[in-house]
């Protein structure tokens, strides 16, 4: 919102604002406005000082014109500048006839754009200055020709004297959606005046003397139109506006069009009230009906597009067809044109939600809809805006007002708001004196009844639809008293506070992240949404994907999996350098559950409508252009991460293979037998889909954070007093039989052999040492079976490998003899091989 200082000044007694502002602060206009308005919540985003260069421009009179001897398009002008005649060469085609007046920049002038005017020669003809266009003077947008001034202006007069306020300071305000009143100069002036103690004195307006003619306006949808003022003007003529009007509009970023349109825009910017002018000769029966549109009723708006309306759209119709989309845009048929001499001027209040819905439905965002959907004044301000427009139209376009009416629909009730002054301190921790409160509320035109010194009853003005409750008034008091006066004071001293707690899943994710960092991985943050094509490899079916209706970057699906984001990052890296890429991310994946999942707690009714969000830690390792990463680094990283939360994880055969991982290079991650994640080589099809070089090996692991069991406090085990004895075993097994299963079979066999020995010992009574020697356990209480080597060289049959294992044997009370260890080892190996052969018949010790 652009606000002109000159315009604001007109809302007060002459010279009052300038003086009050200077008295309030000596820091200069720009800085003073910035501090004052920003302190009131009207943030000043920029300040521009404009028109300084216009000071040296004078009115010039054309005394002679002759063609340039060497250039067709140039004219040599004899120009009277009030003191003498100078010769100026001009390239414009719209030079007025002799006696006409133009804007003249004499030698020595510096134009607003910075151009310094000097004596020049244009193709051999001397030129003493320049005749300017409004664009060159930065007082308008027209650069097609020079600015032609009214003939009755006197040559030599300064433009700044002829157009008061042409030198100006323009503020760009960021106006929050709760302040529709600040979308016009009066509203901003009201805040400024209240802060500076200046009474508001907006320009004088008069009611027309014509008769109230109720037949002009019919409100058929009173729930959508609260009030409609209509004024009929006859005998006016559509022309360009005078320069002061055009400059004013230009200052606030609007383009001058014609006097009628300019007046409605002027009032829009002055009062914040959108107005509309119809060519009354083109309204059937010369009257308007404010009604809902028919279903699919057609209408052509003044931008030339045809719309099919709905019954939720409010229109201003004549006796037959819609002539305007109420509060949003006028219609083409009855728009004001050069030959219009009979007007119906509209000033109305429309219900904000309806305007917003209509504007959205038809893809409009106009200055008008912007204000109506925030709520304009439906009280005195509305009539004031209409009368201001009427006065300006009569002044600029001539004619007279012959009829008017004020039709009523359902206007919002102004709430009666109790205000308890002590509540200010209770809420803000600072008191606002009653005198200040009285002055602020008075300045804002809030009606106050002081029932008691502490309890007041207030009614907010119609231009402040945001003032509904006590807190709203408290905010107003604080805005003007100064939010900077709020002290810093704790309600409860720090030592009296309850202890804070963390969130368990966040906590777990953070610790896993630290584990992955310690494994040498860098944390990545990827977008939570992906393109559908990137998750087609994964197992979540299309109907369970969570879709964004209005995606950006063509990423329309919430990620069902972490891998695509990490692969995107990998692709980015590979395209830029040849180094290894080790990344991880801790985040969420999203999917609709397979069936409705009942929820409980106070938010259950909402929660059942939401998708499942799963917290996941995911890791990716790529060895760089030279290769060098091993698949076991990814299991290592995952196991390390879980160790960070005190858990001992091990890779095991996956219960079901993951489709996005290489079928022969993957494992599940298990903690105490429960699967908490997966690890493996990324499926070669995905490597291809991401356009990574053929044969690139990428390793991936993920941990389902919510499946990770809670940390268990470790219980110390006593240390073995006697050394254990080891026996090595080389086992020939098929490639597809996992080491985890071999170890599990050996452990199970050891248990079985041990039980059998005890039972045998009990039968041969007295043999108390039976079962004394057994498979040793490690420091974590787990069977001491080590996997030393995975051999795939010569001497092993095709499709097989040799696993070198080491088993440790111990007894609690003594050392183990070689014979005992060997006997037990043989029995365990035999039993394990037998059980493994059930599914892999070719297993044999080497």
């Amino acid at each position, binding site marked *: 919102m652009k606000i002109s200082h000159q315009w604001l000044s007109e809302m007060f007694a002459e010279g009052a604002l300038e003086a009050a502002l200077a008295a309030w602060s000596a820091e200069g206009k720009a800085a003073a406005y910035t501090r004052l308005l920003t302190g009131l919540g009207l943030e000043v985003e920029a300040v521009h000082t404009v028109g300084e260069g216009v000071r040296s421009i004078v009115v010039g009179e054309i005394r002679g014109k002759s063609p340039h001897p060497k250039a067709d398009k140039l004219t040599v002008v004899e120009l009277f500048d009030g003191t003498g005649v100078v010769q100026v060469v001009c390239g414009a085609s719209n030079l007025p006839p002799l006696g006409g007046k133009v804007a003249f920049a004499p030698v020595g002038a510096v134009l607003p754009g910075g151009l310094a005017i000097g004596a020049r020669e244009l193709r051999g003809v001397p030129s003493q200055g320049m005749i300017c266009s409004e664009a060159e003077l930065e007082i308008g947008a027209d650069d097609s020709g020079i600015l032609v001034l009214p003939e009755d202006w006197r040559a030599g007069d300064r433009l700044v004297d002829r157009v008061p306020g042409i030198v100006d300071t323009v503020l760009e305000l960021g106006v929050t959606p709760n302040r529709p009143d600040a979308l016009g100069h009066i509203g901003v002036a009201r805040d400024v005046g209240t802060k500076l103690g200046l009474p508001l004195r907006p320009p004088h307006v008069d009611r027309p003397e014509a008769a109230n003619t109720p037949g002009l306006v019919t409100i058929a949808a009173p729930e959508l139109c609260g009030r409609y003022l209509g004024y009929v003007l006859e005998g006016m003529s559509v022309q360009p506006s005078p320069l002061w009007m055009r400059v004013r509009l230009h200052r606030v970023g609007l383009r001058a069009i014609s006097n009628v349109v300019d007046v409605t825009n002027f009032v829009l910017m002055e009062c914040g009230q959108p107005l509309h002018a119809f060519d009354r000769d083109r309204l059937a029966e010369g009257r308007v009906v404010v009604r809902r549109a028919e279903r699919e009723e057609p209408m052509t708006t003044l931008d030339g597009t045809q719309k099919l309306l709905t019954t939720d759209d409010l229109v201003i119709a004549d006796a037959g067809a819609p002539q305007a989309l109420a509060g949003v845009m006028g219609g083409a048929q009855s728009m004001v044109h050069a030959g219009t001499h009979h007007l119906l001027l509209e000033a109305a209040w429309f219900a904000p939600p309806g305007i917003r819905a209509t504007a959205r439905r038809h893809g409009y965002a106009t200055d008008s809809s912007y204000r109506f959907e925030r709520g304009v004044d439906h009280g005195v301000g509305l009539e004031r805006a209409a009368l201001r427009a009427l006065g300006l139209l009569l002044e600029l376009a001539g004619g007279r007002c012959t009829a008017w009416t004020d039709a009523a629909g359902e206007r919002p009730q102004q709430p009666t708001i109790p205000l308890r002054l002590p509540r200010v301190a209770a809420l803000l921790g600072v008191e606002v004196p009653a005198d200040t409160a009285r002055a602020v509320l008075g300045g804002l035109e809030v009606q106050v009844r002081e029932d008691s010194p502490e309890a007041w009853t207030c009614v907010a003005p119609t231009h402040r639809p945001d003032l509904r409750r006590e807190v709203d008034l408290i905010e107003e008091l604080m805005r003007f008293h100064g939010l900077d006066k709020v002290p810093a*004071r704790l309600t409860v001293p720090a030592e009296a506070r309850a202890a804070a707690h963390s969130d368990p899943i966040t906590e777990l994710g953070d610790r896993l992240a630290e584990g992955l960092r310690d494994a040498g991985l860098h944390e990545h943050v990827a977008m939570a949404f992906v393109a559908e094509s990137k998750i087609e490899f994964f197992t979540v079916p299309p109907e369970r994907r969570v879709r*964004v209706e209005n995606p950006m970057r063509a990423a329309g699906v919430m990620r069902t999996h972490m891998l695509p984001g990490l692969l995107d990052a990998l692709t980015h890296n590979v395209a830029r350098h040849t180094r290894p890429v080790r990344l991880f991310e801790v985040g969420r994946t999203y999917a609709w559950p397979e069936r409705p999942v009942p929820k409980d707690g106070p938010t259950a009714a909402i929660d059942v409508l939401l998708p499942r969000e799963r917290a996941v830690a995911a890791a990716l390792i790529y060895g760089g252009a030279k290769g060098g990463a091993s698949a076991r680094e990814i299991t290592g990283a995952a196991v390390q991460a879980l160790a960070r939360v005190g858990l001992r994880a091990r890779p095991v055969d996956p219960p079901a293979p993951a489709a996005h991982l290489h079928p022969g290079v993957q494992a599940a991650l298990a903690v105490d037998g429960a699967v908490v994640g997966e690890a493996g080589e990324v499926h070669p099809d995905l490597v291809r889909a991401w356009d990574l070089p053929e044969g690139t090996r990428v390793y991936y692991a993920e941990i389902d954070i919510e499946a990770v069991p809670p940390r268990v406090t470790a219980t110390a085990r006593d240390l073995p007093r006697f050394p254990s004895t080891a026996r090595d075993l080389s086992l020939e097994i098929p490639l597809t039989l996992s080491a985890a299963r071999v170890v599990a079979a050996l452990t199970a066999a050891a248990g079985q052999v041990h039980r059998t020995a005890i039972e045998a010992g009990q039968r041969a009574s007295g043999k108390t040492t039976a079962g004394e020697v057994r498979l040793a356990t490690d420091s974590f209480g787990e069977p001491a079976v080590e996997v030393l080597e995975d051999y795939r060289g010569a001497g092993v049959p095709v499709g097989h490998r040799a696993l070198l294992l080491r088993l440790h044997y111990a007894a609690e009370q003594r050392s183990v003899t070689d014979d005992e260890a060997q006997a037990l080892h043989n029995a365990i190996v035999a039993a394990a091989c037998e059980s493994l052969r059930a599914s892999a018949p070719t297993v044999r010790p080497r």
Partner: protein
Amino acid sequence: MPARLATQLAAFQEALAGVDSEAALYELQVAYLGKKGTVTALRGEMGKLPPEERKGFGAEWNRVRDAIEAALEERRTYLKDQARRLDLARVEDLTLPPLRPPAGTLHPLSQTRRRLSESFQRLGFSLAVGPHVEHSKYNFDDLNVPKDHPARDMADTFFVRPHRHPGFDDHSDNDAAMRLRAGELVLRTHTSPVQVRTMLAQKPPIRIVALGTTFRCDDDATHSPMFHQIEGLYVDRGVTMADLKATLMDFTRDFYGRRLDVRFRPSFFPFVEPGAEFDIGCPFCGGEGCNLCKRTGYIEIGGCGMVHPAVFEACGIDPEVYTGWAFGFGVDRMTMSQHAVPHLRHMFEGDVRFLEQFP
């Protein structure tokens, strides 16, 4: 001295000169003085001597043994010295690149989030979380942002297509899902729905901080469609805006290591009233003015205010009994200014050359 003793002593001395290790020295000792040593053997022969010679031989033998032992000891000391000198002459250059496991890093956003979270936990704020896909009731309605209100334009919203479980037509939850209209499910545009969820779930006093991912359809050099926010909420009897100011100042002391000024500017957020933007004294220059604060001595942080009574009412908390404040700010911009990150895109590309800069 008896000739045999003299011969042994001479032989020993000759052998000793060639000994250059502790092990060889020990062997030599055993060879002469061990149980079966040659000098030990001579002592055994003493009994065969006539009594008058015995005493003299014994004394000579003791002298030879002492001499050998002393020589052995001297040689041993010499060898130890020698070894120590050699050991000390070793040179290894420890300014060569250190050997260490590959260094990983936490994302700068993560680091800021953790520091913020720890800071606020120290100030007594518990961590609260909520879903990213949220219902507009919690993201907007209950936060005093009614449907068809321009305040919804303050955040460009991503809408999520509601889901109906096929084959569960008679399920009541499914009915509710069917009644969902387009536009009711959203990606949360701020962390504020966590406020609503917390106030629905627990009674005051409430002192929480919510930190997390948020989404808006904005995508340019300074806006990412996904970003991160932190939000604090304190509700109890007698909570004032003065408490908010003091708490934010305490936060600056904890987070930046020194207590910085906090400045409120009136502003509008539908879920607070009065609403304000808050600035803090520039942590880079301490308020004296520098390039990072554009010479103002302050940096803009975020929004705050007193919880709107309409929000309390939506959450079943009596605004006449309880008051509260809330604040929120973006984590991404704070992180970027902290680390002088030149481009927003670096934050989400995953280039390891960027990520490894934040140990």
